[in-house]
């Protein structure tokens, strides 16, 4: 998927049907992988346990593992006594808007980069690489200063705009590789039929690119949904997001600490659902784009 070093032959490989693989599944490997998966889930499971225990045993040392009645009190308190709903809406709105805008801007740019050969494209891709690697503070602190001067500090708009810019390089990169997969002859045929470039992109390319766009969209959405640093610096009371809220609760006393854990659970459940649903498409989508450089 890298524009750079890939030397793989440009043959399209069909993903083999799972049936053939199952025949050879290695039981030791399977058991190891199940163990690994459980280990990977451990922090999540542990937090889920902690927030559903009654407060007096939630963080007891040594941990209390049984003999208590699970409770959803922390969730109830979170919902009733804090502005959690508002933080969640902020987080979701910013993630959705920034994803849509990043794709709307990124798709044509990625398409152009895949069709315009030579130095200009290479330099622009290189720039995208450099932008992706920038230390976040190098752009976010000036954004803080500028947004305060412009009076847009602590708005969903400012945060979404920042995230569009920050996530743009990654989405362009990913999309550019998907476009590179589509033979140029297809564009030419479409243009002979009277399509403009924009028409070609809209009528031919985008429908063909659906798995690629979905993949890029899922990634950008996840990045935006998770973003902590940018939100920490650019928001305060009006557009606070859930990750920022959770970190301001780490030094709280018991019931509120449990609420923070509950907030973490509620923030995570939707993305876990997404990851379970999307993983199949992600592998397929990524392999379409990535096999050839």
């Amino acid at each position: 998927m890298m524009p750079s070093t890939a030397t793989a032959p440009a043959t399209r490989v069909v993903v083999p049907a799972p049936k053939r693989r199952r025949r050879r599944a290695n039981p030791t490997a399977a058991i190891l992988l199940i163990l690994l998966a459980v280990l990977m889930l451990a922090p999540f499971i542990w937090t889920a346990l902690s927030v559903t225990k009654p407060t007096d045993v939630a963080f007891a040392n040594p941990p209390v593992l049984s003999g208590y009645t699970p409770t959803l009190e922390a969730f109830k308190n979170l919902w009733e006594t804090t502005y959690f709903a508002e933080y969640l809406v902020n987080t979701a709105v910013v993630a959705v808007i920034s994803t849509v805008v990043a794709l709307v801007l990124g798709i044509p740019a990625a398409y152009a980069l895949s069709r315009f050969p030579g130095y200009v494209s290479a330099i622009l891709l290189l720039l995208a690489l450099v932008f992706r690697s920038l230390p976040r503070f190098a752009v976010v602190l000036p954004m803080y200063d500028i947004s305060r001067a412009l009076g847009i500090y602590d708005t969903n708009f400012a945060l979404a705009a920042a995230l569009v810019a920050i996530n743009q390089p990654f989405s362009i990169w990913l999309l550019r590789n998907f476009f590179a997969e589509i033979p140029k002859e297809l564009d030419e045929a479409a243009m002979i039929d009277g399509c403009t470039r924009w028409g070609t992109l809209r009528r031919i390319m985008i429908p063909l690119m659906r798995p690629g766009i979905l993949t890029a969209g899922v990634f950008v959405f996840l990045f935006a949904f998770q973003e902590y640093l940018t939100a920490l610096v650019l928001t305060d009371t009006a557009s606070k997001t859930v990750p920022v809220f959770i970190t301001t609760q780490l030094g709280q006393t018991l019931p509120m600490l449990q609420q923070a854990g509950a907030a973490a659970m509620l923030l995570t459940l939707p993305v876990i659902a997404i990851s379970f649903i999307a993983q199949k498409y992600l592998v397929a989508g990524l392999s379409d784009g990535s096999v050839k450089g």
Partner: protein
Amino acid sequence: MRRREFASFIGPSLLVMVGLLVLPLIRTVQWSFQEVNYGQAGTFIGLSNYTQALGDPRFGRAVFFTLLLTAIVTALILVVGYLVAIGVNGLGKLRPYILGSMLVAYVLPGVVGAVSFSWLFNSNFGGVLNLVIERLTGQELLWFTDTWPNRVMIIAHTVWHLLPFSVLMILAGLQGVPKELREAARIDGANALKMHLWVIIPTMRGIIGFVCLITIMDVLRTFDSLIPLSPQADAIGNESIMFYVFDNAFRDGSQQLGLGSAVNVLSILLILICLFPFIRDLLKEAKAKA
């Protein structure tokens, strides 16, 4: 594609990136030569921010720790990621469940995952892993105040968080390896190892390079996970560069904004050095095409 079309396609995106990334970056470079507060014009003080940063042992510690973390985590992620991807690729019905559960670590917001992770190890808050490890080794490790146990925990967390991405990518890459090669690699024994090392991995050089690149970038900017995982990061030498910037340029007000900006500029240089091999490859490729 014509030049004008190219410009119109790429224009909006470029405009956003110039406006929202390049302009702030210029501001950062300006600040790095100034003594300055948010919302005020600074005074030019030449290179003193840079000399202050480079002369600050705390900055040196942060650079050392960040590079160490990057090297260890990247190596672990590549090796473990490859092995897991091979394993997952060989799974049948189980595959979606295993992959789905692993992805959870990646989709959890970094700081949330780090909080959960810290609870697993924090004895004062009834952690369970510290207890298990204590029972197994007979040693009571100080996960939050001893340099190396704390490093191990930070490394474990970073690998935990980033591993799924590399598995996903390598798995996707494996789908592109010709079937005969993969079949051949399944033969047990030394031949399989050779097959992986000399045939399959070179075929996937591109994707592995990409995973390596992304991992380096992500680890170099480690920041939020240290808030719960290393509450006295600087005192035990486990502070990252980004944490140092945060502490100087944001947390205690803005007195040190110039210094923070200078560190930002220095870390950009550092990142460019780390990424140099990849950049060189990209340029070579462009030259070949041009």
